């Protein structure tokens, strides 16, 4: 177990090294936050209480989205490019004979990254948003706790999806097409463009049931108090269920992939 802790710490420090890149990311998150916030204000001024949100809730939702974009890697980015490259070049063979589990190894590294991004790219955009707009903050300290648990579960679900995408490289060698597809689904079905509660009819029902809603919609609804009491537990259980199911699928695919792996050259 200690080795995974060490890997997570290195994952955190790897991303913490690039301070200018982090600041650049914060700047970009803030710019997009402003643009989206104004469009949401225009929409919620026309339709107050749309999707069960008041105007301050809708604006807070925008800034939560910017704060969590990097943390739960909604548009992808993170370990999967490295892993795909290692599969393509055959370096993954070295990873496979290490005395550590491939899935757990990269999970630890990615959670380390997520931890840094929550602090480095989550706090500052949220502060910018709070300076410019009246935001809706959780009333009770316990809500903060539930929110953090939900963000952690969202990071695990996000990792499990991207792990599956990366493993596809064992068969496809070129992972770029699937990575793009995952980026699109992540952006649209996480609720990054619009809250999923605003999606019409069946599209909304389906979107809320897909794993991507764990990345932003569920944590945001807990933060905003739109989920409270039993609904918080249901939301966390939803995320944990997807996390287990997708990690399990990852194990199955990993088993199939490692049986098939042929190291080229040598």
């Amino acid at each position, binding site marked *: 177990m200690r080795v995974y802790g060490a890997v997570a710490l290195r994952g955190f420090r790897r991303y913490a090294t*690039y301070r*200018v*890149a982090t*600041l*650049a*990311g914060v*700047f*970009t998150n803030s*710019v*997009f936050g*402003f*643009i*989206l916030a*104004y*469009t949401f*204000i*225009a*929409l919620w001024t*026309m*339709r107050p209480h*749309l999707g069960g949100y008041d105007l301050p809730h809708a604006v807070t939702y925008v800034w939560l989205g910017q704060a969590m974009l990097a943390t739960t890697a909604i548009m992808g980015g993170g370990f999967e490019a490295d892993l795909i490259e290692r599969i393509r070049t055959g370096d993954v063979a070295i990873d496979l004979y290490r005395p550590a589990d491939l899935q757990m190894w990269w999970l630890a590294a990615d959670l380390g990254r997520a931890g840094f991004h929550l602090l480095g790219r989550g706090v500052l955009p949220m502060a910018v948003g709070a300076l410019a707009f009246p935001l809706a903050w959780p009333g009770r300290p316990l809500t903060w706790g539930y929110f953090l648990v939900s963000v952690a579960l969202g990071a695990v679900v996000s990792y499990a999806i991207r792990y599956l995408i990366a493993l596809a490289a064992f068969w496809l060698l*070129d992972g*770029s*097409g699937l990575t*793009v*597809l995952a*980026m*699109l689904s992540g*952006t*649209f079905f996480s609720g990054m*463009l*619009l809250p999923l509660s*605003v*999606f*019409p009819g069946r599209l909304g029902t389906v979107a809320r049931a897909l794993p991507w809603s764990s990345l932003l919609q569920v944590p945001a609804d807990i933060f905003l108090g739109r989920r409270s009491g039993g609904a918080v537990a249901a939301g966390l259980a939803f995320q944990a269920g997807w996390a287990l199911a997708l990690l399990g699928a990852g194990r199955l695919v990993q088993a199939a992939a490692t049986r098939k792996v042929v190291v080229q050259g040598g």
Partner: protein
Amino acid sequence: MADGLRAYALIVGMWVRSTMAYRFSFVMMAVGNFLATALDFAAIAIIFGHTRVLGGFSLPETAFLYGTSGCALGLADLVLGSMDQLGQRVRDGTLDTLLVRPVPVFAQAAADRFALRRLGRISQSVLVLAWSLTALKAAWTPVDVLLVPVMLVSGAAIFSAVFVTGAAFQFWATDAAEVQNSFTYGGNALTQYPPTVFAKDLLRGATFVVPLAFVNWLPALHILRRADPLGLPGWLDFCSPLVAAAACAAAGLAWRAGLRAYRSTGS
């Protein structure tokens, strides 16, 4: 200049041939590029499912803004989009390779990793623009008709200037590639919505600091017969080409200054 263009065309041709070696991957990426912006428009369509007007603009009017902004950015992105990788080259020292070749560095940096898949974004924007033109109930005068191609070309030139300025900035801040995303893709996200949606200060910034308002907002306000939320004089609606030329000149100076300031990492 002619040398540079010839070199640019040669390098672009090389990258296109290399892309076509993996034809399936190329098709997937182009479709992905198309869908990425199509989902943006899906979000706008969902918004207009809940409200008839946004900031006083109807769906066809917003689609007109969306289409013109998307085409302008798409063209700039296709021609110069790879320039945002410049920081990477400065960081790992491969920029030196470009410097020793007998070809202008600008042409090489612009054509580097030329991505034909970006046609996906352009075709999606063209479709939305075409639909908006049929759905708009505007009284088209000959001047209005002429203004559409003028704003597309000027808009592409303004976005190109932003790409080049951002690349020049990376000579100093090699890790700050993401900052320019705020002005290119962020500028696109901004100008695809009606200007009336945004706060006055943001509009002033987008008019006088980074002249994104000239990409489509000001000419479109004239075509759609809308009042300018900033109350600027009406002749500014026709100034996009001048602003684009000035922006390109400024970007050229920034590029020169950046290239002069470049210090190789050495080894």
